[in-house]
């Protein structure tokens, strides 16, 4: 079994889904001949034709709205938005239509669609290419929000997203597209869409993160372990709905929690995790719940972006502080 990168795993999942189910359609800018600006759709148009793998005009609102219409007709569209910074024109369709078509029509029309987009900074891309505003999406009832952090989870969660009968925004960790590499068996098996993954068990402190930040979070756990601090690492993976139980029971065990995300702190999804802990595990808490996050400012362009993204050192410091708290 050869190793694949995360973006290759995405490609495998798309190919598998299209093979299995001819109602799956891939659409977006440059997804056809070009195979996508990150090559996530490479080869698909050749395999499945230009009707099922179609290059749309340059219009993100359109892409999301087409998905809603196609889905109402029983297709399973998978739209690609080139960068998360170009997802905002889709918000009207996501909030007002995709997420509530089933509810509005009491189940008569449904909306099985996926909108995929790269998430996060760190690849020295131009302005507006470094967004991580998953919290805005995770607040929308009726939507699912998913973010893998390994080739394996990318493959299996994307398959689950495509097969899910409801709309899913699938956020792909840009920094990991080529950096993460692992064996993935292309066997069509999916993972559940509302389970968090405990990537590493530990007794002293719970580190909760998602997407590309797992890399720094795991590295921090390694450093902490060298200091004798035993960190549990949770990949939340699905943000909407999210797996409260896994987070809460981990914190009940460790008594300490550090939440790590790349997005700006205020109103980030880390707040939700902290809130659920404050609500459900207060009496287990041995230290304040802290958030190690991007700053509350616009993500800077390439020259400063590394200062914006939470570092291993910031995570380690926060976890250490939590363990020393009294």
């Amino acid at each position, binding site marked *: 079994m050869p190793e694949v990168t995360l973006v290759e795993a995405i490609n495998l999942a798309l190919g598998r889904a299209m093979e299995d189910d001819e109602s799956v*359609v891939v659409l977006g800018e440059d997804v056809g001949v070009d195979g996508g600006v990150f090559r996530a759709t490479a080869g698909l148009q050749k395999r499945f034709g230009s*009707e*099922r793998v179609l290059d*749309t*005009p340059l*219009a993100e*609102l*359109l892409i*999301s*709205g*087409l*998905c*809603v*219409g*196609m*889905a*109402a*007709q*029983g*297709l399973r*569209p998978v739209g690609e938005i080139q960068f998360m910074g170009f997802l905002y024109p889709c918000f*009207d*369709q996501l909030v*007002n*239509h995709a997420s509530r078509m*089933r*509810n*509005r*029509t*009491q*189940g*008569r*029309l*449904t909306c099985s669609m996926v909108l995929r987009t790269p998430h996060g900074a760190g690849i020295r891309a131009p302005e507006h290419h470094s967004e991580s505003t998953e919290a805005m999406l995770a607040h929308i*009832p*009726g939507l*699912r929000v998913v973010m893998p952090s390994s080739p394996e989870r990318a493959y299996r969660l994307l398959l689950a997203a495509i097969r*899910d*009968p*409801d709309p899913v925004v699938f956020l792909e960790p840009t920094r990991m597209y080529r950096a993460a590499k692992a064996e993935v068996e292309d066997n069509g098996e999916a993972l559940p869409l*509302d389970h968090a993954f405990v990537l590493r068990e530990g007794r002293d402190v719970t580190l909760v993160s998602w997407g590309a930040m797992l890399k720094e979070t795991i590295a921090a756990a390694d450093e902490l372990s060298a200091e004798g601090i035993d960190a549990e690492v949770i990949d939340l993976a699905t943000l909407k*709905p*999210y*797996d*409260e139980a896994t987070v809460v029971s981990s914190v009940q065990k460790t008594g300490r929690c550090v939440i790590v995300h790349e997005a700006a702190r205020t109103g980030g999804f880390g707040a939700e995790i902290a809130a659920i802990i404050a609500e459900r595990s207060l009496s287990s808490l041995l230290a304040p719940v802290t958030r190690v996050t991007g700053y509350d400012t616009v993500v800077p362009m390439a020259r400063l972006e590394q200062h914006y993204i939470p570092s291993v050192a910031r995570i380690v410091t926060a976890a250490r502080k939590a363990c020393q708290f009294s």
Partner: protein
Amino acid sequence: MASQRMADEGLPVIARFEVHRRNYLKSDGSIARPVPAFASDANLLLSLYRAMVLLRHFDRKAVALQHTGRLGTYAVSLGQEAVSVGIASAMREEDVLLPSYRDNGALLWRGVKLEEILLFWGGDERGNQFSGPVHDFPFCVPVGSQAPHAAGVAYAFKLRREPRVAVCMFGDGATSKGDVYEAMNFAGVHKLPVVFVATNNQWAISVPLRLQTGSETLAQKAIAAGFTGEQVDGNDVVAMSAAAEAAVAAARDGKGPRFIEAVTYRLGDHTTSDDASRYRSADEVQMHWKEDPIGRLRTFFVDKRMWSKADEEQLAADCHERIEAATERYLAMAPRQPETMFDHLYADLPEAYAAQRHELAGEGDA
């Protein structure tokens, strides 16, 4: 007539476009030009007439229900009945309608029940779970946002080689929205089986057409998307039906999308929440009553001795009866249980929200 611009400097012309206007039945009930074949079918004309009259009676009832607190905000079709009825009359059951909030006439024609429409405007989602064609869309409230859906639906038809057509209806105001343009542009690229219908009733709430766009017609907006736009007398149900027939047939034949501008006038308030006298004169409204689509067709029938006063009274009585019966069924319908607000959120309610549903059901306490 729009002038041709930029003919200066003798530069060569590389593209030319024309916008046509379609009308048959003039406002006095006389005929402007040879009518299309279907218009010689008296039964069809009568059924169009009956549908328009039903709609007008129904609107009146709905407004009364709203005024007495038994219905929410409601948008009447007064003066515009020929548009939605004419368009729907050209569609097949298997086609898909994507209507705006003012297209009751089209829904009724396609089999949605009066009480279902009341239920929706009464604030109950079950109104969208209607008896009309199962793939038809619910009323769209965010103006113009259903246009991309229409393109998506039409794309599915084309992909599956199904001879079906999507019909998307919206107002003059909606033609200012980027989503409508994006959808039309995409439809133009793929020659999709979709018909876009702009009901140009001259007003978007208080905003008159001249502040909505600088274009001489709405029909010409299709030129930007590479297909044909036609202007139609929207108060002439024969013209509306004929234009829709032509457009739907072309779309079904693989000839690509069409755009229809139906020129009409909103004789009533925008909705029951609006007071149109704040922004337009009674005189202006009065003047447009002369164009009334129902009156002119009645005159035509009467002139042809196809219709009597007794027929009219009978029709009114029928409408009344149907509407009253539907209203009773509507009013008798108990509201949903509060916790059902979770029942169609996802196909299967995620565990995370089950507790909230439970709390709402008063059975527990999340």
